[in-house]
């Protein structure tokens, strides 16, 4: 069995020897040439191995792009995620409970971030801004909310299949704040009535006519909401 403090030598070479053992090791090093040489070897080895470059190149960066990882994870997802995203996973929308507002939709990480590589994904990008009357949504029965979520999922699945989906995000159920020259209007608490901007989608379409036609098929419309269509500059 070795009489040399090998473990402490390694820890010392790596700068991780606890303070309360340092004095003993230094005292040993004073008298042990073999351990001094060993320490020099370990330090040089640490330094050399640390210097080896393993930075991610552009080629490997592509494989490790967050969107590609999420796309790779999308199918099959974990059972619970699959359950949660049952109605809308493929579309990038998941169904879940949200406060007193009943079922809502949200972007799920089970979905690829973009579909630029999907055939058919060409043309300018349009933003569809979803506006809903909070009072109407609150008036929906649970079954109707569920139907709406399912319909939204199907709608988004179709967009994705067609290579049109380019992103989207649900917004929290709050009015947020409005900034103007007059100052900041804190409207965060005023979500019980009036119109709420509840989310947005980015889609690809050949022009306004097609984007508008797509917006008209958004289930939110048949449930009383409105969709503003704007082309991204």
């Amino acid at each position, binding site marked *: 069995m070795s009489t040399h403090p090998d473990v402490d030598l390694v820890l010392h070479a*790596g700068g991780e020897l606890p303070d309360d053992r340092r004095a003993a090791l230094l005292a040993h090093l004073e008298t042990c040439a073999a351990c001094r040489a060993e320490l020099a070897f370990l330090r040089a*080895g640490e330094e050399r191995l640390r210097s080896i470059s393993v930075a991610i190149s552009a080629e490997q960066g592509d494989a490790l792009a967050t969107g590609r*990882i999420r796309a790779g994870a999308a199918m099959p997802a*974990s059972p619970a995620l699959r359950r949660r995203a049952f109605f809308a996973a493929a579309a990038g929308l998941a169904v879940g409970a949200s406060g007193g507002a009943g079922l809502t939709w949200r972007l799920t990480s089970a*979905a690829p971030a973009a579909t630029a590589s999907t055939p058919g994904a060409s043309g300018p990008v349009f933003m569809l801004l979803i506006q809903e009357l909070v009072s109407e949504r609150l008036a929906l029965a649970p079954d109707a909310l569920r139907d709406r979520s399912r319909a939204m999922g199907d709608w988004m699945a179709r967009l994705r299949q067609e290579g049109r989906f380019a992103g989207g995000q649900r917004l929290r159920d709050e009015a947020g704040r409005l900034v103007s020259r007059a100052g900041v209007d804190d409207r965060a608490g005023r979500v019980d009535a009036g119109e709420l901007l509840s989310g947005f989608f980015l889609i690809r379409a050949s022009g306004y006519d097609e984007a508008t036609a797509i917006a008209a098929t958004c289930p939110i419309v048949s449930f009383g909401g409105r969709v503003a269509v704007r082309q991204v500059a």
Partner: protein
Amino acid sequence: VSIGFEQALVARARDGDAAAFDEIVVAHRDRVFALACFSLRDRHAAAEVAHEAFVRLFRSLDTLRGEARLGTWLHRVTLNLCHDVFRERQRQMTRVPIERAERLPASAERADPETMALARASDAAVREAVAKLPAPLREVIGLRFGAELSYAEIAATLQWPLGTVCTRLQRAMKLLEQELTTPS
């Protein structure tokens, strides 16, 4: 990154927040890739392994309960995936048996750092030599210099005593020196 913040990120990702999952990937991507690089030598294969590790993380979001740090979990999965790749290659590799490493006296074969082969060898040669190490020694090297973990973190990842981590790192360095000194 505090463990609380990390758990909050996992919770958000579990709830479908894509940005939270992306944040996790970005925070760990470099280290996971570097760990796989040290383990596999081949950068392309390392990228695939790292990709798969994050895919598995995504699929495991529901079962992560916060007992271990996310990095620890990811590094274990990465090492397991590297094992799988390595097993595929095993027959083609010239490997140093672990017994040979275990028999090396801890303080033998002292090298002069000025002339040591490990210090003078090219990156490619060092990677080649690391790839020939027995798996446990290769893992220590990968976690230390790829994932940049402390010895305590390596011990937690591999579930070895701290002393074992240290002695295996020491043996790994000696085997590397030996491999790089030996004319091919």
